[in-house]
C-alpha cells in the first residue's frame, strides 16, 4: 500500500509530498529513534505507548491494519485500525472501522511545538480510516476513543460524541456516521 498525501511544512509554508504506507519495521525504528525519548520526556498522554509491542501483539491477527505516514523518510504519524468485531452505536449492529491507536510524531503536535513541523498528519490518518471504512463497505462508519487533548479535533470532524466511557478509563467515545459531516467530501 502506498498512497500519496500532501502535507504542509509549516516553517516555510510549503506543500510537500508524503506517503501513507503499511507499517514496517523501519517505521517502528523511527518511533524508537526519533519519537520515544521526546515523548517520554514530555507530559503527552501517550508518552508510555510502545508501538513495537502493539505491533508485535497484533501480527497474526487479520483484524488489525497498521499504517504509517512517512515524510522526509521518517514516520510522521502512526495508526492501528481494527476492521472487524466493532459495531456501530449510531447504527447498531452495523460494522465500523475502529481506530485502536492513532498518534502523530511529537514534533507535529501543537502541544509540543509552537510551530509543528508538518500539518495535516493527523487528518490524513483519520481520513484514511474513513476511506478504509468505505472500501470495506462500512459506508464511512468509524469509531474511536479520543485522548482528552484530542477531543476537539473529532468534534470538528463532525463525529457524534457519546460521552465518557466508564469501561475505557472514561475516555470519550466518538463515532462518525457515513462520513457525512467530517469536513471532507467523502
Amino acid at each position, binding site marked *: 500500500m502506498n498512497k500519496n498525501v500532501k502535507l*504542509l511544512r509549516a516553517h516555510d509554508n510549503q506543500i510537500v509530498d508524503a506517503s501513507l504506507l503499511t507499517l514496517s519495521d523501519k517505521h517502528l525504528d523511527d518511533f524508537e529513534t526519533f519519537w520515544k525519548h521526546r515523548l517520554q520526556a514530555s507530559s503527552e498522554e501517550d508518552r508510555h505507548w510502545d508501538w513495537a509491542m502493539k505491533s508485535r501483539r497484533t501480527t497474526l491477527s487479520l483484524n488489525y491494519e497498521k499504517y504509517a505516514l512517512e515524510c522526509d523518510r521518517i514516520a510522521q504519524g502512526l495508526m492501528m485500525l481494527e476492521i472487524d468485531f466493532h459495531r456501530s452505536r449510531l447504527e447498531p449492529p452495523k460494522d465500523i472501522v475502529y481506530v485502536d491507536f492513532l*498518534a502523530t510524531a511529537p514534533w507535529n503536535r501543537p*502541544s509540543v511545538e509552537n510551530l509543528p513541523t508538518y500539518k495535516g498528519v493527523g487528518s490524513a490518518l483519520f481520513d484514511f480510516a474513513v476511506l478504509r471504512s468505505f472500501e470495506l463497505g462500512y459506508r464511512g462508519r468509524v469509531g*474511536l476513543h479520543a485522548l482528552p487533548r484530542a477531543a476537539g479535533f473529532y468534534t470538528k470532524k463532525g463525529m457524534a460524541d457519546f460521552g465518557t466511557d466508564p469501561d475505557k478509563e472514561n475516555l470519550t467515545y466518538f463515532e462518525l456516521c457515513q462520513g457525512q459531516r467530517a469536513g471532507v467530501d467523502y
Partner: protein
Amino acid sequence: MNLEFDEKWLEKAIQIEDEAGCDVQAGLDLGRNSATYIATAKSYIDHEKLMLILKEGLGNLFALEELEALAVNLQNCTRDCVIEKLQAGKTA
C-alpha cells in the same frame, strides 16, 4: 469513494486542525491515569501476605532474607507483566 489527499483536501484539513487547536490522537490512555499504580510493584500483591505464604511453604528451605528477595522478585515480575498486558490492551 475515492478520496484524494491533494492540495484541496489539505487546505480543508489544516483549517479543521487549526480551528480545533489540538493534537490528533486516539487510543486507550492507561498510562496517564495509572502510571503511579503501575510503577509500584507492591500494588498488586500484599507483601505481608506473600511473605506469610512463602514462609509457610518454603520456610524450612530458605532463610528469611532469601524469602524476602523471592517476594520482591515476584512482585517486580508481576508488575512488568501487568505493564505489558496494559500496553497491549484493546479499547473495545
